[in-house]
């Protein structure tokens, strides 16, 4: 994909963010020669109470960035909105920064009017209100969602300037809802059923076929995210959550589950979300997001201004289970050392890793690679391309490389 197809607004903020502390200490405050270099004590009252809080005005640069990935073919109703991973700490994505991908805009749904129809191969075909669903025993779990197109511009050459663009179709939240198995067991699934169609109430009636086994395993009908109701752009009032499966299948504004024998072969699982190989064959039904990691600080677009202590930190995750180990290389993969995983490390959730590092002012290439509890090791890009070619678009989970120049500038490279 051409780099000129990449119409993202650069933010000067990204470069400054990594260095805000040192900039402030060296010259951020003006002072007289004999005055202490500390802020004065406040002499006025602060702001009044607010019904619903929002970030400090000083954080106004920490925002999602919409990107048209397919040249001119996307609109504000269908484009991707990328999470600013470089500015976030820990593993939970704030609700206002959770990545977005919509197919017909964000519907405005009154939860009192919303209905979930469950039909097909069940003993009892039923219609549920939101109140009905909240009367099932609730469950809460932390899980990531990643678009399987995350990084699709990066197959042939490094294109995204920042980790927000190379990896920002990734977020993680604490979800609350009902186990799909509670509902389906209650209704009674008929013998022979194997696939379920999940359909949204958006303008596109976006729909995907889900293996029944996944729904019975760990899927959640989620109505809350990080303690509050889902945001409209995350499916308010109800979404499907399929831990570890590609983002598109986590159907938002869920209005229908139809239980059947065969896949339904919707547009999204045939013409899209299939992985074209070099020989012209295409893989269909590649659902799991395989183990992946990325260094978020320092990362593309930043500049390191001072030598010395500079901890490396980033995120690791696996759709198959739990991250067991993350290693960091500062020499383009020649040597690797283990990073520290920040507890708690949860299944099918983002894990935070930290690696102590002293920058000596010389060129370096930073990489991370992760291992999950199935024994899977995050591959290099060359290893992936060898099997899948350069046309498969989806499921790029290769090791990411950040080049540190002698002047501290960090850029996206293939190494």
């Amino acid at each position, binding site marked *: 994909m051409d780099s000129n197809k990449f119409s993202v607004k650069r933010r000067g903020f990204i470069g400054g963010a990594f260095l805000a502390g040192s900039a402030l200490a060296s010259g951020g405050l003006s002072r007289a020669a004999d005055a202490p270099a500390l802020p004065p004590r406040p002499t006025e009252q602060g702001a009044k109470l607010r019904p619903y809080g929002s970030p400090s005005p000083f954080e106004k640069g920490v925002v999602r960035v919409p990107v048209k990935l397919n040249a001119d073919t996307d609109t504000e109703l269908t484009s991707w909105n990328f999470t600013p991973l470089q500015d976030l700490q820990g593993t939970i994505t704030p609700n206002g920064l959770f990545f977005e991908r919509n197919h017909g805009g964000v519907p405005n749904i009154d939860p009192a009017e919303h209905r979930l129809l469950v039909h097909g191969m069940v003993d009892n075909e039923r*219609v549920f209100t939101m109140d009905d669903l909240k009367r099932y025993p609730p469950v809460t779990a932390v899980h990531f969602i990643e678009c399987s197109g995350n990084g699709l511009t990066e197959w042939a050459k490094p294109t995204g300037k920042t980790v927000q663009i190379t990896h920002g179709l990734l977020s993680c939240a604490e979800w609350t809802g009902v186990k799909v198995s509670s509902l389906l067991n209650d209704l009674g699934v008929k013998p022979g059923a194997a696939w379920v169609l999940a359909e949204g109430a958006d303008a596109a009636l976006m729909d995907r076929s889900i293996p029944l086994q996944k729904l019975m395993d760990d899927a959640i009908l989620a109505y809350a995210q990080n303690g509050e109701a889902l945001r409209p752009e995350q499916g308010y009032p109800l979404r499907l959550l399929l831990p570890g499966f590609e983002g598109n299948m986590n159907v938002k504004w869920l209005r229908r589950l139809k239980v059947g024998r065969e896949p339904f072969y919707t*547009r999204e699982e045939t013409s899209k979300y299939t992985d074209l190989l070099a020989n012209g064959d295409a893989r269909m039904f590649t659902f799991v997001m395989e183990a992946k990691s990325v260094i978020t600080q320092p990362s593309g677009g930043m500049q390191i201004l001072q030598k010395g202590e500079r901890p490396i930190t980033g995120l690791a995750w696996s759709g198959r289970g739990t991250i067991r180990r993350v290693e960091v290389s500062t020499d383009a993969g020649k040597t690797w050392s283990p990073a520290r995983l920040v507890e708690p490390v949860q299944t099918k959730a983002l894990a935070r890793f930290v690696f102590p590092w002293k920058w000596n002012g010389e060129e370096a290439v930073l990489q991370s690679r992760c291992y999950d509890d199935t024994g899977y090791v995050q591959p290099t890009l060359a290893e992936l391309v060898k099997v899948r070619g350069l046309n498969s678009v989806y499921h790029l989970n290769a090791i990411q490389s950040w080049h540190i120049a002698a002047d501290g500038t960090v850029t996206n490279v293939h190494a």
Partner: protein
Amino acid sequence: MFMRNLLKAVVALSLCASFVPGALAAKTGEYGLGQPATQAEINAWNDDVSPAGDNLPAGSGSVAQGQRVYAEKCAACHGAQGQGGPMDKLVGGQGTLDTKAPVKTVGSYWPYATTVFDYVRRAMPFNAPGTLSDDQVYAVTAYLLYMNGIVQSNAVMNAKTLAAVKMPNRDNFLKKDPRPDAP
């Protein structure tokens, strides 16, 4: 080690015995939540179309009728000849999937003609989804198949003829996930 495993097994068994039948393993109808879906409610939303043609509605549309629907409803986004611009290219690309510049269109890539009907009825036109009649959807599907050289100019699509269309790329999908494939 053996003792620890044995202990785990005993604990697991006792947990099963004491809790699962009561609180966790729901029996059919135990909660009794929701209302029975009426046939009218199911019919209102049950409109997904399978490759076998299940759920295809009554009605029909010809290539000629589809050309008129396409010109009025689709051409502004997908080009007069389906060549694309500003939105997706719908026509052409056959023979390109194994090259360095694959062109994925209805004709070159989509495995099932029924999916074209389903998607157009579901989500198109983008600015007014759900406004085409079933006859119009059959017609525009016929026209897209004709422009891709898959049906003749005199073709008429209906529940029977549409399900019988074999798309050129149908058999080139691998329907089982072979991963992990690296390293």
